[in-house]
């Protein structure tokens, strides 16, 4: 909290401020939305993996009705349950945005709630467009990418409303290395998004599998570098160490699942006449862990931003360079 009579610093005004009381119910609600959103991502992955994307041919209605529940058989089971979970998440996000606007004193958090609502609306529209235009790869890929972006926003809101973020003063350590850890985490997010788009383009028949597979080692190198730097140099900062360990664990899991998905879908299943259990399970798990990996990386980047300020060199004439925290 800024002291009375002096100008608040940038840090106090920005994310690092301690200007709102901890609201347990608000935080739990945000965590709940993040969990339900993860279920929604799994439901969406099941739709694609079961080739059920067009089993309900209309939108925003389902078989001409906004409220009637169709017979849940075949592909309808996946497509319609995905729509219902999506509507539930949309409804919860409206509540979250209003609640955040009213209860959270941080201005940027109010707008983050609005941004979450805007993202979930955009995601719903993209989902509708992909049905109405018969699953064009560009729209379906955007739907996949925006869905995971919303998941990251939901996780970030859960983090920002948590007790540790709101009440505890951040333990900091200045980053003097180049490239900086924050640069590495942002690079990690970038390569993960590229990988997400390449994977989604392959899943939605807009591209071959090889760009996704070729990018995988790049993702592995960048994320491993980031995780090891975070774990070794900032091991005493729990808020940085934990997401870094999680990110590395998820990366290893994801690489294994990617190999499994490739084997079951591309190597064994290319001539399959219908989606088979092994290919469905491996690809859905690959999508789900990919979403968790992206979210863990975003959380790591946020924590690094908060706990590891970057040192800038100040060079006086004739003097040795001196590290100063930004």
């Amino acid at each position: 909290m800024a002291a009375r009579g002096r100008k608040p610093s940038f840090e106090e005004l920005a994310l690092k401020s301690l200007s709102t009381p901890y609201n347990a119910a608000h935080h739990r609600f945000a965590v709940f939305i993040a969990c339900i959103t993860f279920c929604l991502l799994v439901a969406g992955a099941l739709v694609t993996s079961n080739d059920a994307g067009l089993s309900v041919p209309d939108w925003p209605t389902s078989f001409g009705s906004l409220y009637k529940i169709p017979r849940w058989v075949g592909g309808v089971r996946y497509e319609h349950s995905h729509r219902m979970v999506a509507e539930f998440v949309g409804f919860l996000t409206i509540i979250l945005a209003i609640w955040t606007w009213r209860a959270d004193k941080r201005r940027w958090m109010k707008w983050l709630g609005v941004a979450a609502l805007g993202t979930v609306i955009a995601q719903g529209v993209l989902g509708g467009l992909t049905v109405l235009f018969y699953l064009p790869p560009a729209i379906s890929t955007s739907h996949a990418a925006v869905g995971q972006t919303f998941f990251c926003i939901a996780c970030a809101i859960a983090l920002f409303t948590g007790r540790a973020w709101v009440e505890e003063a951040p333990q900091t350590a200045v980053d003097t290395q180049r490239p900086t850890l924050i640069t590495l985490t942002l690079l990690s997010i970038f390569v993960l998004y590229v990988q997400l788009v390449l994977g989604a383009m392959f899943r939605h028949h807009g591209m071959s599998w090889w760009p996704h597979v070729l990018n995988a080692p790049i993702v592995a190198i960048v994320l491993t570098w980031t995780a090891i730097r975070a774990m070794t140099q900032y091991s005493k900062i729990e808020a940085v160490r934990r997401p870094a360990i999680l990110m590395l664990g998820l990366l290893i899991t994801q690489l294994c699942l990617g190999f499994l998905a490739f084997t079951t879908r591309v190597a064994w299943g290319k001539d399959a006449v219908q989606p088979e259990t092994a290919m469905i399970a491996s690809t859905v798990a690959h999508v789900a862990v990919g979403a968790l990996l992206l979210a863990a990386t975003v959380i790591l980047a946020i924590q690094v931003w908060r706990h590891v300020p970057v040192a800038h060199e100040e060079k006086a004439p004739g003097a040795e360079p001196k590290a100063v925290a930004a």
Partner: protein
Amino acid sequence: MHAATPSGPPAAPIDPATVASVSGTVHFDGTAPEMVPIDMSNDPACKGDNKAETVVAKDGKLANVFVYVKDGLGNRSFPAPANPVVIDQTGCRYRPHVAGMMVGQKLEIRNDDPTEHNVHAIGMQNAQWNESQMPKATPIEKRFDQPEIMLPIKCNQHPWMKMYMNVVASPFYAVTDADGKFEIAGLPPGTYTIAFVQEELGEQDQTITLGTKDKKTLDISYKAQ
């Protein structure tokens, strides 16, 4: 009624007294792949035996090959027949698995299953469409405006359900039967490119010259992949 309308001066009308025909057998060399059983358990209303029809070969004869006159008809145009081509959904499969029709001809899709389907035509030259159809509902009626070979029609509710429609500009086409046999009759004398198209094994083209009232045989073979 639509008709194929090639450019250029109109060709001489076909004289029924001179027409020829070509028939033959499509062979399959090698061991035929096993027809994989379909798991239809995700919809209890889908009953019966169902097997993948990607390659249907028996005793070295290949069924479901679409055979058509790809070239040689010049600028002749042909009116689309008045009778519709019918696709039936029964046992959660399409009957037939491969069919042909003319540009502008009516396509009638029936649902004789006790479950709903969605019928999704994935045209590249023709517009896509996707409609749901309840059990015993009124048949869906459609027409295709452009020639297109192996246009997939599928059901996303039952992802194994897929058939191929072949839309051509002339009535000179056939689909091989269970014995791999086909016949295209009523062709005016001339030299033609006959195309054989199989959904998995691809296309083979053959050139044939037909004289007045000729009845020629044209056999081809696909090799096991």
